């Protein structure tokens, strides 16, 4: 083997070795590049690793990776290591420089000074610095799937290092792999962004759902405003928040809630023609108003009493629209400039839509509630008015009775007064004369006198004046037959003394010389008894009337369900009306024995009062009042009938209606039978009327004996 041959062979082997070494190096580089591309996004270290990889393959002291943003028309240095310290890592517009040329031509370029100048001369590129400041320059586009992602630049400032076509091919080869990694990074980044965006959207949607639930869960406008404020404060930079609602009159916007820097402002109202209010402007023009301009905001009145700590620099106003109607305006504001990005605005809009619905619901609810309150008030007033009328009706009925009752009381009082006087005079007259008389009588006569007085004091059967007159007349005839003078006068006295039953016993006294004195004094003593009885009877009468009045005056008091005797209540009412009944009414009572009925006795008294009153009025107190009380199965049946004018067919159905009356104005409220019906309803009873014009009417009341179930 010659030396040259040997040297050549050695050189050849070395070359082969070198090539193999480079091949292995290349292999390793490609493997590393591939492994880099697994990263989600390129970081500085990834670029630094690329730099190191390329550096192992060639001279790469100066190494720049740039990305191309076609949309923005910008070329951005992502990684730069350069000897020239004037090189600034700043984005520059895609244009007519050499980097732009690489991107535009989509092919690798190897430049030296001469080629650079030639390109400048042909206008292919423009050189800001006039001359190339490098010695050797390589720019290789990063192209993957037909897309230019950027470029890799390596350059040498030293004449000792001049890149060759071979270097360019190697860099191009490496770049194709880098481009794939970049594309993958890009894709990864986009995917990550999309995922983040998606996650954000999902979060936004969830938040909005929560806000919506929170907002629409309340029917109180102020609570809705506070909820909205709380949610916004969590999601947006917000230093002021307000909700203004269209006034009920529709001519102004009234802030129902306004908070700035945590201070709640008093409500302010702006007329819809207000010249500077941004809320009014938003409402009037029916559009969202987004302002990031301080001067514009300065003119806008927001709160009045809130001293701003810092100027509001961002604001968004949005009309509140529910069911297609503008109902108000909501605003969020911030001290930060450009506080509201798209997402914030999106959240604001969606929440505003929910809030509008919630506020509209709240308004409807408030209106319904107000209407309900008004209705309740009206009902209470009506009840009160009705109660008042019921009271008037009672007072009217009572007033009509008072005169009659006064008479009812005056009669027994007159009798009591008179009888009292009779007694005291009888005592004075008869008892004082008694000793003298007794001296004139012998023992037998005294005994007879004593018997006479005793018999006179015995309880007497109630004789009518007519019956008594018959007895007196018979006795007169007997006395006349016996030849007595003053027979009629004496007969009258003897009947008073109840001596007519056993005339023989008193004949000796009648024949006595002092017969007149005997009769007078005995009668005087009897007077004491009869008048005392008379007083008792009269007092009973008064007591009965007082009791009836007392029952009457209890009307409207506490109602107590009690088992009561219906006949008792009816009798009470008849007592009260006795005076009127006497005017010419024949009273017929047909009472069956009834068990006690569980009822409100005072209220039923009101029923009987009304029915008796109407009956008497219908027949102008002349005719027959028939009161029946009977049992029908589980019911007690009371019927009150008159022989009056009757109720014409055409009004029969209306007589139980409130305010229906046939009486002249002022004489009846028309509530009588309405009250009757209500009371009977309360007892779960029934009232019916049978009537014939010119014949009379009968009202029949059925009441369950057991009371209400």
């Amino acid at each position, binding site marked *: 083997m010659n030396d040259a041959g040997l040297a050549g062979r050695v050189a050849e082997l070395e070359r082969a070795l070198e090539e193999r070494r480079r091949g292995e190096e290349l292999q390793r580089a490609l493997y590393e590049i591939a492994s880099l591309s697994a990263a989600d996004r390129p970081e500085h270290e990834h670029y630094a690793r690329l730099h190191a990889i390329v550096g192992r393959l060639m001279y790469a002291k100066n190494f720049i990776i740039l990305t191309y943003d076609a949309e923005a028309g910008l070329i951005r240095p992502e990684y730069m290591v350069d000897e020239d310290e004037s090189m600034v890592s700043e984005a520059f517009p895609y244009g007519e420089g050499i980097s732009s040329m690489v991107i535009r031509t989509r092919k690798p370029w190897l430049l030296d000074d001469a080629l650079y100048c030639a390109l400048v001369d042909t206008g292919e590129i423009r050189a800001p610095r006039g001359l190339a400041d490098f010695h050797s320059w390589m720019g290789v586009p990063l192209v993957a799937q037909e897309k230019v992602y950027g470029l890799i630049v390596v350059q040498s400032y030293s004449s000792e290092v001049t890149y060759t076509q071979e270097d360019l091919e190697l860099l191009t080869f490496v770049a194709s792999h880098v481009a794939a990694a970049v594309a993958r990074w890009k894709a990864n980044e986009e995917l990550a962004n999309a995922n983040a965006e998606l996650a954000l959207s999902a979060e936004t949607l969830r938040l909005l759902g929560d806000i919506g639930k929170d907002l629409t869960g309340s029917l109180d406008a102020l609570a809705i405003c506070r909820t909205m404020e709380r949610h916004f404060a969590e999601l947006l930079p917000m230093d002021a928040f307000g909700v203004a609602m269209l006034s009920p009159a529709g001519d102004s916007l009234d802030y129902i809630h306004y908070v700035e820097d945590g201070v709640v402002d008093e409500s302010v109202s702006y007329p819809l023609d207000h010249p500077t209010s941004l809320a009014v402007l938003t409402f009037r023009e029916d559009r969202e108003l987004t302002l990031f301009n301080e001067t514009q905001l300065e003119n806008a009145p927001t709160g009045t009493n809130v001293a701003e700590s810092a100027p509001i620099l961002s604001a968004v106003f949005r009309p509140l629209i529910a069911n297609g109607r503008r109902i108000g305006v909501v605003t969020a504001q911030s001290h930060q400039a450009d506080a509201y990005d798209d997402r914030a605005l999106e959240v604001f809009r969606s929440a505003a839509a929910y809030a509008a619905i919630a506020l509209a619901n709240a308004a409807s609810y408030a209106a319904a509630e107000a209407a309900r309150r008004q209705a309740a008030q009206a009902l209470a007033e009506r009840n009160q008015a009705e109660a008042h009328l019921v009271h008037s009706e009672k007072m009217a009925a009572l007033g009509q009775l008072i005169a009659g009752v006064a008479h009812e009381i005056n*009669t027994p009082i*007159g*009798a009591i007064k*008179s*009888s009292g006087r009779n007694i005291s005079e009888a005592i004075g007259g008869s008892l004082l004369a008694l000793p003298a008389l007794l001296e004139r009588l012998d023992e037998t006569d005294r005994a007879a006198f004593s018997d006479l007085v005793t018999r006179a004091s015995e309880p007497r059967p109630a004789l009518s004046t007519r019956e008594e007159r018959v007895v007196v007349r018979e006795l007169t005839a007997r006395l*006349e037959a016996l030849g007595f003078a003053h027979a009629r006068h004496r007969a*009258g006295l003897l009947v008073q003394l109840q001596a007519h039953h056993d005339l023989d016993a008193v004949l000796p006294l009648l024949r006595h010389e002092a017969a007149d004195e005997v009769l007078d004094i005995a009668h005087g003593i009897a007077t004491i008894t*009869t008048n005392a009885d008379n007083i008792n*009877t009269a007092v009973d009468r008064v007591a009965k009337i007082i009791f009836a009045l007392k029952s009457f005056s209890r009307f409207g008091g506490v109602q107590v369900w009690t088992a009561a005797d219906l006949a008792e209540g009816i009798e009470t009412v008849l007592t009260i009306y006795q005076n009127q009944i006497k005017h010419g009414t024949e009273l017929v009572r047909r009472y069956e024995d009834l068990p006690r009925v569980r009822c409100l006795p005072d209220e039923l008294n009101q029923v009987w009062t009304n029915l008796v009153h109407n009956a008497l009025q219908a027949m102008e107190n002349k005719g027959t009042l028939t009161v029946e009380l009977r049992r029908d199965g589980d019911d007690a049946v009371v019927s009150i009938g008159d022989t009056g004018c009757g109720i014409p067919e055409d009004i029969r159905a209306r007589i139980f209606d409130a305010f229906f009356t046939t009486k002249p104005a002022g004489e009846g409220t028309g509530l009588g039978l309405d009250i009757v019906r209500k009371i009977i309803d309360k007892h779960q009873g029934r009232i019916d009327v049978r009537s014939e014009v010119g014949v009379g009417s009968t009202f029949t009341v059925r009441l369950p004996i057991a009371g209400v179930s």
Partner: protein
Amino acid sequence: MANPAQEKGVLLCVDDEIIVLTALKDQLRRAFGNDFHIDVAESAEEALELLDELSEQGHRLLVIVSDWLMPGMKGDEFLVEAHRRFPTVVKIMLSGQAQQEAVDRAKREAGLHEFLAKPWNAAELVETINQGLKDKL
């Protein structure tokens, strides 16, 4: 048969209330019993029958004291009728409740001597009757 002419004149009380009649009868008997026969009736209808009876028997009717408010015929109507039959009788109305027009009518058509209200004063009643009798003489 006793001579009716010997009988005393009659003083008649009409009232639907027995308690009133009882009290009146004793009161008037004590005041006028020596001079008059006291009779009572529970209604105007009964009183009219009685008047006919007394009249048939030849009794001299002197005074009528009548209530106004009674079942059936009222006091004013009764007194008008009594006045028609016995114009000279002293007529007194004694009532707790009489309509003014009824009193006026009795004054106009029945020559009502006096209206007294219940509760009445015994002395006043006696005085009124005496005054009425004196006026007739």
